[in-house]
């Protein structure tokens, strides 16, 4: 952090200034001039927080993708299918048992097992042949998508939010001042706040595991040089299996989250595959903090785009990707190899 500031004083100043302006926009009551320019504050805040929550969901899905890529150089283009599979399993579990929370471990375990089978049966057979692996996962995603369409049909499912999380929650942020002179506060769906918190907790846990535990040490060593790690006696295939299972399981959990505050339909697998791709391209391949940063940027830009320029919201995402590729091809927090 300190190194970055001393190396790039101008950029740090720009980033700090941008964050300060954003914070001011969030916290201060808006004047009428600003409302004329940006629309109502409630709208802006809703787009911003919606974007951050969407970013949290993107982070859940993309972090598994980027972890797998960073360690094994496997581009798993069936990741979107794992997301959708996790969502459908979560839907079935929560419908049958009536427990939203139970859906998470069940979905995590089942999708993780699917991911491990994928790793062991597909990727391990073609080690080092990145292109073939990619092609096979494309084929598998086609097959999985069709089988899921067969099983669950084309209709859209929404996972029921549990009672204790449904309804709005008050957020201590002033939206405006009403006639009586009292400040009105922003109300926001409680379940989205829970999702955001959960994503932050998972992100922090992942960071801790990666940076503070023995397994994390093995993973980081594997990212840097897996031949050397294998040569020093580590059973690297087990590390691979564990990481692949964990990444796939995260996608499965992401499916439940997505199914709760959006919906599960057959096209969602490609949508989230695309989102993961863009997030890791923007954030930097193989970097967890990069995935978090990229996810928040893409989530906010999508929601802002939907609010302020509905026709072109996709183009914003795309332009961000192009800008990053043009100026920093390895991604915002990616490393040059």
């Amino acid at each position, binding site marked *: 952090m300190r190194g970055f500031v001393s190396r790039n004083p101008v950029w740090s100043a720009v980033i700090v200034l941008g964050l300060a302006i954003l914070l001011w926009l969030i916290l201060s009551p808006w004047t009428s001039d600003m409302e004329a320019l940006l629309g109502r504050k409630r709208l802006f805040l809703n787009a911003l927080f919606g974007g951050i929550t969407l970013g949290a969901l993107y982070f859940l899905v993309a972090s598994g993708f980027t972890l797998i890529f960073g360690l094994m150089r496997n581009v798993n283009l069936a990741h979107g299918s794992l997301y959708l599979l996790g969502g459908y399993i979560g839907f079935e579990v929560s419908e049958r048992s009536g427990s939203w929370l139970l859906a998470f471990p069940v979905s995590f375990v089942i999708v993780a097992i699917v991911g491990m089978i994928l790793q062991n049966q597909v990727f391990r057979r073609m080690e080092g042949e990145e292109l073939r692996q990619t092609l096979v996962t494309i084929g598998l995603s086609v097959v999985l998508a069709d089988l899921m369409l067969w099983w669950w049909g084309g209709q859209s499912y929404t996972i029921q939010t549990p009672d204790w999380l449904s309804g709005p929650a008050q957020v201590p942020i002033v939206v405006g001042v009403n006639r009586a002179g009292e400040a009105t506060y922003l109300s926001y769906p409680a379940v989205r706040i829970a999702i955001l918190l959960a994503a932050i907790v998972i992100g922090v846990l992942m960071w801790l595991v990666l940076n503070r535990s023995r397994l994390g040490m093995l993973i980081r060593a594997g990212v840097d040089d897996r031949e050397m790690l294998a040569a020093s006696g580590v059973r690297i295939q087990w590390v691979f299996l564990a990481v692949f299972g964990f990444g796939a399981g995260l996608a499965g959990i992401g499916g439940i989250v997505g199914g709760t505050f959006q919906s599960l339909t057959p096209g969602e697998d*490609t949508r989230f595959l695309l989102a993961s791709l863009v997030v890791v391209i923007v954030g930097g391949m193989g970097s967890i903090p990069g995935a978090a940063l990229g996810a928040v940027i893409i989530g906010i830009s999508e929601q802002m785009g939907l609010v302020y320029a509905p026709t072109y919201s996709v183009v914003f995402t795309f332009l961000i990707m192009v800008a990053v590729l043009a100026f920093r091809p390895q991604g915002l927090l990616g490393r040059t190899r």
Partner: protein
Amino acid sequence: MVQIDRSGDPLGDILNGKPAQTRPGWLVQLPLPFWAVAFLLLIMPLIANNFWLFQVFGWSFILGMIALSLMFLAGYGGMVSLIQMSVAGLAGYMVAILGTSGMAEISLNWPWWLNIPVAIGIAALFGTIVGALAVRTEGIYTIMITLAVAAAFFYFTRQNYGIFNGYTGFNRVLPPPLFGVNWRDPVPFYYLTLGCAALSLAAVTYVARSPFGLALQGVRDGPRRMAALGFNVTAHRIAAYTFASVIAAVGGILLVWQNSQISPGTVGIPVVIDILVIAVVGGVKRPIGPFIGAVIYVLLRTFSPDVLTAFGLSTERFKTLIGLGFVLIVFFSPDGVLGLWERWQARRHKRRDPLGDGGTP
């Protein structure tokens, strides 16, 4: 020094992109199977009925051309680009927007000699820009970036109503009635697509042997060495995207004429992946591969409902069939059906290439 190897498939050797051994003789070297296939295709309207001419062969040639542009980038340039279907779709959209269509409010009604070149130009420009972005990275990154751009293009056409007419797209986009022929009639359309396919096949074969094509293959195999030799690696790659985009654009225009309509579904992710499947199943080492892949794909697509029904399955499951077939091909034969054929030939002749298994890139 040059030794003619007769062990392999002679048709393949000619189309392999190997430099011609003797300049004046290369036409004569085209082997018998080539002439037989060409003759058969030319007299096809005498044999096949209209459904086969229009739906099976016309569609195969079109898909083959779009997949050929992918093959050119993947096989000679080492860049697996998934943008080719979007380039083709953009050309189709441009023909609908600049020319005439059922959407009179948007279409500009330009004459055909203006709108077709402009459409191809715009599509080629788009392909070049995406290529310029994609060549900043390498290998699997190229797939990811081009897939992301292709998806963005699909969502954009679906959301944009001002230019692309959103969800509905354009209908009644018809080929111009040139020389008093309705080019959408099965027989004229068959010859039109056959001609375009043959031309693009010849163009790819020629370019692959030209100094540019050889340099591109050099860039594929050793970018650093080529750079050290003074070649501009990036420029060669971007130029390859431009050339491939032109072929894809022609294919896209033919596709619009065949369907007489275009909508976001034409450039959707499943179609983008189908093009990749076609190229890989056919084989990305030779220009003829994508056409073989396209014929297989179209036959499966056309007749799999009957087969699936015979097994008591729903006709919807043909995606599973195609996906499984693709996975199996990639698993067992990385260079597609053509690779299977070559291996079978090699085994039959009991003579293996002394330099290994044909040099996988």
